[in-house]
């Protein structure tokens, strides 16, 4: 059976893995692997011996004195693994370390959990969204589109939204290419073409990564005040955002779901970004264990974000009538606001912020070339 050998690092990893998906462990496949070795191999023999010895000795039983000459030595190495054990003329990262047992754990995580389940999760989310659309259809504006508009997002807010959106999409696509490409793309386009694609993805991913941190900071400072949980959010959660039952749950500028997405993005995305930075700069002298751990954190948090963002994109585009206008034009339909953000809509109406479609149209600066007194009558903002 497989058991953690590295102390802090592996318990952290184990915790993450357990949280991520409680699917029965990889012991079986580990055994398969060992069975696969038929040829005598001193190196592996040694390694296997170390592993065996690692298990607490049974009471009263001493290891054989002269079992294998190297084993005691490698045992020693293994025991004091966390302190620099070796000295060597070769100066590079971890060059004094003889064995990196965490590597095997990381391998197991990547190959047996991350790649298959990550792939299934992304595909499943797509399927879920399609299914949801087929069953539930597009959420309409029940009162129908109105000819009134409310200003919803300023130019700056729309800018930083699409800024982070563009960066996120690029990072997600390049990231997934590197994660799933070996299984999905190499059979299709061959290893050489994929190598080119993967290299481009890697370089692009590395370069755009730090921008995500910047975009995240801009988003955080701009939207944090509107995303503080308030009374009524619990009701929203309990009624599943209106999914349970047909009644709408009142909400403010952002509803409970949007607020949660914001905090998810900030917290989870923050972890993704910071762990990404650790991975981007291998020259800072961080060891393999830190990098492998960062990779674990990076992958799990990024996948979480991808799943949530797929839902976000769905509900913001085809999933709901009138949802995307706020982010494209800056103005939203009054009826949409009343139906989805009624507290906010009411406040705006009381403040006299309601304007007509035509006014919104002009303020947006659409249709270059035509001054307003010659704009065809009856033309709408669509």
């Amino acid at each position: 059976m497989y058991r953690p050998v590295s102390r802090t690092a592996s318990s952290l990893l184990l915790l993450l893995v357990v949280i991520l998906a409680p699917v029965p462990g990889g012991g079986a496949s580990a055994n398969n692997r060992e069975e696969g070795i038929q040829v005598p191999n001193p190196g592996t023999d040694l390694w296997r011996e170390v592993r065996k010895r690692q298990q607490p000795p049974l009471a009263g039983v001493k290891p054989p004195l002269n079992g294998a000459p190297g084993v005691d030595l490698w045992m020693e190495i293994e025991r004091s693994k966390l302190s620099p054990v070796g000295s060597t003329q070769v100066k590079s990262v971890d060059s004094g370390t003889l064995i990196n047992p965490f590597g095997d754990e990381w391998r197991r995580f990547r190959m047996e959990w991350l790649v298959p389940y990550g792939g299934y999760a992304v595909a499943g989310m797509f399927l879920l969204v399609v299914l949801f659309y087929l069953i539930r259809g597009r959420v309409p504006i029940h009162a129908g589109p109105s000819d009134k508009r409310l200003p919803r997002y300023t130019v700056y807010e729309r800018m930083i939204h699409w800024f982070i959106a563009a960066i996120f999409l690029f990072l997600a696509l390049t990231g997934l290419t590197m994660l799933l490409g070996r299984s999905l793309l190499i059979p299709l386009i061959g290893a050489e073409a994929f190598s080119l694609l993967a290299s481009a993805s890697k370089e692009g991913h590395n370069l755009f990564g730090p921008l995500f941190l910047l975009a995240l900071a801009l988003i955080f400072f701009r939207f944090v005040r509107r995303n503080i949980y308030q009374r009524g959010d619990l009701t929203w959660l309990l009624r599943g955002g209106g999914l349970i039952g047909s009644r709408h749950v009142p909400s403010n500028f952002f509803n409970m779901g949007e607020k949660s997405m914001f905090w998810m993005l900030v917290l989870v995305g923050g972890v993704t970004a910071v762990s990404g930075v650790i991975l981007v700069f291998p020259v800072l002298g961080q060891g393999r264990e830190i990098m492998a751990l960062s990779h674990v954190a990076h992958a799990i948090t990024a996948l979480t974000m991808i799943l949530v963002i797929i839902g976000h994109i769905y509900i913001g585009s085809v999933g709901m009538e009138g949802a995307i206008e706020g982010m494209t034009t800056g103005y939203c339909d009054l009826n949409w606001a009343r139906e989805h953000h009624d507290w906010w809509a009411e406040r705006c109406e009381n403040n006299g912020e309601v304007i007509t479609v035509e006014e919104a149209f002009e303020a947006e600066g659409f249709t270059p070339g035509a001054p307003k007194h010659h704009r065809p009558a009856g033309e709408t903002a669509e």
Partner: protein
Amino acid sequence: MRDAGADNMNDRIAAACDELRRQIDARVSSYFSSCVHCGLCAEACHFHVETDDPRYTPIYKLEPMRKLWRQEHTLLGRLGAVLGRSSGLSERDFADWEELVYDSCNLCGRCSMVCPLGIDITYMLRKQREAFNLSGYVPDGMQKALERTLDTGSPMGVTLKTLKATLAHIEKATGLTIPIDREGAEYMTLFSSMEVVNFPEYIESIARIFDAAALSWTISSEAFEATNAGIQVGSRDGAKEIVSRAVDAAEKLGVKYLISPECGHAYTAIRWEGPNLIGRRYKFEVVHILELLDQLHREGRLKFSGSSDTPMTLHDPCQIVRRGGVVEPPRNLLHKVASGFVESTDHAAMNWCCGGGGGVSANERAEALRLKVFGRKKKQFEELGVDTVVTACANCRIVLEEGLEHYEMETQVIGLTELVAEYLEQ
């Protein structure tokens, strides 16, 4: 002025296009080549800032000129024209842009100061107005002002008789003699009709100041009007005619200096555009009244006693300061006669226009818009918390007064020359 034979609309548009074509010089071409449509000029324009209307973006007001330039000065534009993808300027373009060109631009030049590419938008708008004038798409109010100036000598219809009556009144009040048509005088002064009608205090003040400084000066009975509606409308011929009157009169009297009064466009017209309009240099020099006062003071010919401690600020008239270059003289004078003088934010070359420049104050239909964008001035004055505003342009003065009244503000507007006269050492 429209040609007699160009009654036909098509002819007029063709003439306007020809004019626009002629107006495109190396400067204009480099400007349009440089513009990256960044939109920063909009942030400097009070019409955009106060209304948030994107159409009031300064560079957008030049769209007809840009269209023509693109078609005739760029490869892609010419290609488009050959392929029939784009047509030339139509009457519709002139009709559509008349409001943007005349109602929503004061030619104040603030946008030209901030463009990161260094584009002088005002320079081009002034040129574009020449074409609009030929197309006939000109606001009636401005057209009439020009016609009146050409017919009667003054946009407000002020005749020599009116002036003489005012002068007689002033002579009586001050006990001074105001010299008219005195040959060999050193200085000849012009007035704006606004001063004759609304602010005779100005004339009285310069009479007293010149007397105190023992200046040899005169007024010409043939040309005393300084304002030049031709510049505002974009009528080269009209502007030339008006400038020639003053130049001829001055040269006839043989003066050494011509004094431009407290009027914005008058200064631009006579000082900067005049020589180009008549095609030669003058035989005299043009000085602005503020420059002259500052100079007299520096030379010690003008002495002040006491100063006003009322908190006051200066409204820089665009055409005198930003577009005219008389930046320091008003400040030097104010520091002498007003101890309570404070600069507002965005002063001197970056001051906000009163909203009435560039002929907008003569354009009745633009009044609502003009009052709306006056909100910018209102905020500027409120920020500073000063109740007295000094200015040096009769047009600014009347527009400020109207705007302040509209917004029910208590702020007082006074002329700088009057203020100087008040603290003259007798």
